[in-house]
């Protein structure tokens, strides 16, 4: 297919501006996309990928008993990526006009020293039939709670906080609904469409009594469930948040040191996400920043540990029908009984490291090139009860609720503990606050010696090279034989 020939059938086709109705990024774009892909291939690119996106966001904030902010936002855009060998050029634009897309493509080609060639043989045979993962999702946005209902539910939440809590200085509820329609086409024959829906609701309190203060928050999130906010149990969430705040309000600061720790299930899985999961992304292999790059088939963790990353669990925050490179989601066993099985890989990772794609090419939106990113990532359940783990510790820390964390370029991780208790002689005793867990994946993974039988997942957000994305972390209760606890 020629590119840019003034009178060719291809160039006479019009690249339409995205229609405004939901479901409008569809197969009607196929000819326009074929033009772009053929043009890129004709210029000498190994592979060209076009990512089109439309978004619709709603954010609502309730403080005390008042709605204080309603923030709708909508947008559209395209990201065009061109590969040549191990290199790639990526250009994003809000301009979906024919000229805007063409300009973006030519800019991406120019980054690799390529230019459109109207007479080149593109070797591109056109796009196949659209793989439409969105065909049953067209009414999701309409089925979500509208503003009136969303605000009412949130105010129920802050009212429940008032009913369950004491010494509450601030009560907040927040709701976010993110709708995204994507169309992905690539010169390797990828042509897929999807609609994603993420909703989350959070409750936060600040409890204060004299000099004592405790801020506690929880966020609950799902994907692809328009009725999720309607099903939300505001009372149970409020009771959980208030119970934690009440406990932590008068807690002493934790004493720093090395000690065994038992980490609770659900959001406790952030330790694996930060300590190990990021190091199993091929972006880290490309950079040479993971100690596990050459260790597939070797033991990198205690034999009690089996770890999984997948995009299939129904309703989970990190689930997806296809990734942002048009590949169907998979279940990827990362570690089996302590032995490293494989890496999380995207298109660029496969080209640069040889690790096969796992349906993990993800991005915040069209302004980011996709990268290998986690989806629902968790340590699998083990044979023990949570009580057995706690009973096995003479003196240590029980981390009931974890905050955020991060991992640095040398593999050192850290994360904050929101709610913790001392373990003394196998029993939970007094609550403590101010703990930060730090360590290195290579050293900590072999120290996860016990896994309980109560695996649960929790929604979260992960910020990294391709932006902030929806993820799930998870684990059963786990025991770490020794970890550094930062405190006072």
């Amino acid at each position: 297919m020629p590119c840019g020939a003034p009178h060719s059938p291809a160039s006479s086709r019009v690249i339409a501006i995205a229609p405004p109705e939901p479901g409008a990024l569809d197969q009607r774009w196929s000819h326009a996309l074929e033009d772009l892909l053929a043009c890129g291939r004709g210029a000498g690119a190994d592979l060209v990928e076009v990512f089109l996106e439309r978004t619709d966001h709603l954010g609502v904030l309730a403080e005390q008993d008042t709605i204080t902010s309603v923030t709708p936002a909508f947008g559209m855009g395209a990201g065009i990526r061109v590969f040549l060998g191990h290199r790639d050029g990526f250009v994003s634009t809000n301009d979906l006009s024919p000229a805007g897309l063409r300009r973006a493509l030519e800019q991406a080609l120019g980054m690799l020293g390529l230019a459109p060639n109207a007479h080149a043989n593109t070797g591109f045979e056109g796009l196949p039939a659209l793989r439409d993962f969105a065909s049953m999702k067209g009414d999701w946005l309409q089925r979500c709670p509208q503003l009136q209902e969303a605000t009412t539910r949130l105010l129920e939440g802050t009212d429940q906080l008032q009913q369950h809590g004491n010494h509450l200085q601030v009560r907040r509820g927040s709701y976010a609904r993110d709708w995204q329609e994507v169309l992905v086409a690539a010169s390797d024959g990828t042509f897929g469409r999807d609609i994603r829906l993420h909703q989350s609701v959070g409750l936060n309190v600040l409890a204060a009594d004299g000099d004592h203060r405790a801020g506690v928050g929880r966020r609950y999130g799902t994907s692809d469930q328009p009725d999720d906010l309607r099903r939300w149990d505001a009372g149970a969430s409020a009771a959980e948040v208030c119970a934690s705040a009440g406990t932590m309000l008068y807690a002493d600061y934790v004493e720093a040191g090395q000690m065994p720790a038992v980490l609770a299930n659900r959001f406790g899985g952030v330790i694996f996400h930060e300590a190990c999961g990021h190091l199993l992304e091929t972006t880290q292999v490309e950079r040479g920043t993971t100690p596990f790059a050459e260790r597939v088939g070797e033991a990198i963790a205690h034999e009690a540990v089996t770890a999984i990353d997948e995009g299939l669990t129904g309703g989970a925050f990190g689930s997806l029908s296809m990734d942002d490179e048009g590949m169907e989601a998979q279940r990827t066993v990362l570690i089996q009984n302590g032995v490293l099985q494989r890496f999380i890989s995207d298109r660029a990772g496969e080209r640069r490291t040889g690790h096969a794609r796992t349906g993990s090419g993800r991005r915040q939106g069209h302004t980011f090139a996709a990268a290998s990113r986690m989806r629902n990532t968790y340590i699998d359940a083990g044979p023990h009860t949570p009580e057995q783990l706690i009973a096995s510790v003479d003196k240590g820390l029980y981390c009931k609720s974890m905050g955020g964390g991060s991992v640095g370029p040398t593999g050192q991780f850290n994360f904050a503990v929101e709610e913790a208790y001392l373990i003394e002689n196998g029993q939970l005793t007094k609550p403590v606050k101010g703990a930060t867990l730090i360590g290195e994946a290579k050293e900590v993974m072999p120290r996860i010696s016990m896994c309980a039988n109560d695996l649960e997942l929790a929604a979260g957000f992960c910020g990294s090279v391709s932006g902030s994305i929806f993820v799930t972390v998870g684990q059963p209760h786990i025991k770490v034989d020794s970890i550094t606890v930062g405190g006072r």
Partner: protein
Amino acid sequence: MSNTSNSSGLNAEELRSGLAAIAATNGIRRWDLGAACSTDISVQVDRGEPKQMKGAQRSSITVRVWNDAGLVGVTSTSDLSEAGLERALTGAKEASSFGNADDIPAFSPLATAPLASLDQPLHQPQGILRLLDTLKAAEQELLSRHDAIGTVPYNGLAERSSERIYLNSDGACRQQQLSTASVYLYARAEETGRKPRSAGAVRLAYGAADLDVAGCINEAAERTISHLNYAPIETGRYTCVFSSEAFLDLIGAFSSLFNARAVLDGVSLSNRDSLGTALAVPFLDIHDNGLHPGNIGASAFDGEGTPTQRLALLEGGVLRSFLHSEATARAFGTTPTGHAGMGAKVSVGPDWFEIGATPGSGGGQAGLDRFKAGEPIVWIDSLSALHAGVKASQGSFSLPFDGWLIRNGEPRSIEAATVAGDIRQVLQAIVGFEGEAKITPDGLCPMVWVEGLSITGEA
């Protein structure tokens, strides 16, 4: 800077006339708008090869609409077409039904006040291929500085041209064009049998040709090499010396102390009565000054069109002012300070800090030199994970850091450690300052000595 555009992607007069027409059609009499557009290019390299080259054209607007009941709604979009503007205005009108009657933003009374003149030369972009050559050379130079430096895993060189506009239906019209460039180099070094170490540096300028790339290389190399010889540190209390960057990060993380929005929301450690009280040692000054010439990319006006200004936050350790938006200023009976965002609920945030000794105070203990101290000194070079380790509403922090333990004048890198404390205690435990104030991307600050901080190590 002017109120009209004639050379870039945004045309204020066209936006104004378009919005006015759509507003009139939809019965909207009062509105304002913040718009921005930018063109970015950036490169990354990996051991001599181009890794990723990126370009982006972005545009976005946020519109606010006041309905007939006086309530405010807001909508944002990246669609600047006529259809996009109409959808945004009507969406904001719909959202205004849920506006907060107890906290209604208004136009800033300073939205047409004169703006400060900023010396911000506009540079033409060099183009991606020149950026690539520059970054490849920089990476090569950094790799050559020490055998242990094997990669520069995080690197980037970028140019940006941007423009922003503020308009309102009362005739305010603000517009600013800007060009900026940045380079960052984070090296990873590893010696046989030892743990990998990493450090880096960043530089900003108004154009790529003005970037201090050599300085960035030197700083990244020196920092990285200085961390190769490391040892664990014993847990305990130490006198700490914060680098300019680290102290600015810490103050920035607790800027809710000075934030009127946070005060009104009840999430600040300060309250309405805190003005005039001593928060810190009597020789500490903190100003917010977005207009400082060292603030590359300074904005002449905030999200409500209020001019940026220099504002005294702490003088002699005493809290003098809060950062304000229009609404918070009205609530406090004062004037906006130029620190607002734009929204149905307007956010407030700092611009760029100036931290140092109160004039005439002596600045605390004189002659401080971390290499001549009689006790072990922890020199904190950079703090990490502030998003997770800072509890701003409680005042507490527990943060990993990179730094050195100095004994008898000899610094040795600390293997891994956290520093923990309470910001109120930190501000009262400042011993003094060392060295000249340094300009960083976040502000101006000398090194700051603080005694008695809790350090957790792995020894």
